[in-house]
């Protein structure tokens, strides 16, 4: 009887420790991306307001391309940025490099930014975007489930979301982005 009790306590205790331990192991892992919450429903950006916004002064043509670009063939990338956003400057050299290698793939949306400020930023630092517009009223930000800037979305040719980078394309996020883009381009 006593042995059975002791055995039961050991089994229960071990189960408990393993249960709590595994929860902590997964929950407190610093490598885990806090933006990727486990979710059972597929997150799908909504393109219903795509192309709506304020053209940046001097970039009116780039605003017109926006509406037709996603209907064209080929995968594409949507990047939310802002002239006031410091982390955006970290990824900016890579965005220029990416658009030079993949002309016509990168679409820019200025989040909560003055169109004049956004245009000045692109003129001074270089414009990586084939199509760009100021997301007035944050319509597209909400439709894309944006949490902050910069945020980058990789879409396949049919508009399926393949990858979402919840931060600047540097380090691990850049590696993941490159992999996703390669998969999209195949």
């Amino acid at each position, binding site marked *: 009887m*006593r042995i059975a009790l002791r055995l039961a306590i050991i089994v229960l205790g071990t189960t408990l420790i393993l*249960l709590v331990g595994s*929860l902590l192991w997964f929950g407190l892992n610093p490598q885990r991306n806090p933006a990727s919450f486990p979710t*059972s429903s597929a997150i799908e950006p*909504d393109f219903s307001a795509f192309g709506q916004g304020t053209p940046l002064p001097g970039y009116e043509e780039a605003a017109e391309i926006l509406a037709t670009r996603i209907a064209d063939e080929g995968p594409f990338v949507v990047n939310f940025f802002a002239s006031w956003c410091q982390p955006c400057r970290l990824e900016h050299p890579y965005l220029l490099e990416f658009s030079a290698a993949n002309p016509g793939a990168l679409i820019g949306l200025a989040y909560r930014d003055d169109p004049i400020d956004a245009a000045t930023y692109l003129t001074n630092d270089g414009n990586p975007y084939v199509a760009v517009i100021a997301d007035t*009223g944050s319509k597209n*930000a909400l*439709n894309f*489930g944006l*949490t902050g800037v910069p945020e980058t979305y990789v879409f396949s040719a049919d508009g399926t979301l393949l990858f979402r980078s919840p931060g600047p394309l540097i380090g691990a996020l850049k590696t993941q982005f490159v992999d996703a883009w390669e998969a999209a381009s195949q």
Partner: protein
Amino acid sequence: MIRRTLWLCAILLAFLVPAHAQSISEVRAKALFNELRCVVCAGQSIAESNAELAQDMREQVELLIDDNRSDAEIRDWFVRRYGDAVLMNPPLKPLTFALWFGPVIIFLIGMAVTGLVLLRGRSRLKDKS
């Protein structure tokens, strides 16, 4: 004197009226603000947060209410874009069973262990006597 009292009452009433003049959509909006999480804040609903994103989300809730969407449709609208994490109360799904029932299970295990330990103590006392 009576006149003055009447005036005073009128002024006080004027303060009271706006508090009661809430439309149904305002009440619904407030309830939804408390149910939706500000996704960039630590554990705050969009009702509590002053973050720019929370402001945008509140405006969107009001727009959708004006568009005659039901509360469930509005919650769905946000879940489709932000995932389940946008809801302050996680939905009950197989994925969240551990979250909802984990504490109860751990409590039951604790009770079982306590019970076993107590039983063992009692049986020991019996052995001695």
